[in-house]
């Protein structure tokens, strides 16, 4: 049995769909952040496998994944700073309660 490109894409797709589901349904901001990481990760996998299967010897996909990881790290750090700040003010990190900046 050959493990073709498709076999890698399917887990990635499932991972992405889980991320979507989590993002839409969860209320805790950190859980939303985790869903976001899942989605990001699924995309990373796609970058890598496409690079590896279709353009072996070149490294663009890998580098993009590298950058995506760096950005994800930065984004997470910032998001957590914001979340903790919100928690300090609202004593809560439920997105439904954060309506102060609505409209």
């Amino acid at each position, binding site marked *: 049995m050959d493990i073709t490109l498709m076999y890698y894409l399917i*887990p990635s797709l499932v991972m992405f769909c889980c991320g979507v589901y989590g993002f839409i*349904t969860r209320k805790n901001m*950190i859980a939303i952040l985790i869903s976001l990481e899942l989605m990001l990760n699924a995309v990373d996998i796609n970058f890598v496998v496409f690079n590896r299967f279709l353009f*072996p010897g070149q490294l663009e996909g890998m580098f993009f994944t590298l950058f995506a990881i760096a950005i994800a*790290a930065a984004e997470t750090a910032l998001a957590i700073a914001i979340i903790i700040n919100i928690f300090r003010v609202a004593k809560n990190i439920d997105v439904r309660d954060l309506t102060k900046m609505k409209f």
Partner: protein
Amino acid sequence: MESVGSIIMYLIIALAIIVFSVLAVTTRKILRSATYLLFTLFATAGIYFMMDYQFLGAVQIAVYAGGIVVLVVFSILLTSKPGDKAEKLASKRRAIGLLAAFAMLGVSGYALLSRCGFFAQLPAMGDVTMDQIGDQLLGTGQGGMLLPFEAISVLLLACIIGGIVVARKR
């Protein structure tokens, strides 16, 4: 034809990704959610290793699994009491989420399966050396990545400053 070992490896990894992803978004305890995320990330690193990108796999484990998850766990510990459970989802909300997820799965899955080009074999590739990565990451020639690299560095700086400003006690 792949070796049986790699097939088994693949199966374990694929199964881990699917199971832990699903668990990460369905569990009601946030700390468990973070733990499942960690496993998913490890499995992803496994894929990178299978793709012969050892450096990337290492980065994935070090930065993602090591850094980000720890950060997330810290913030979870800071913002929730032990034993906190997310309340049960309203069925409407879950239905919407499921609808979106399955629609996504259906459309993208159909698009994937309807394209025979994705059934490519894993081509042979030489080892990616650190020399090669370093040259290309900081190079300006063909495939050089210096400009994005610099852009990312500026972004990181902005994030550091932003993080300080946001989290600082007033």
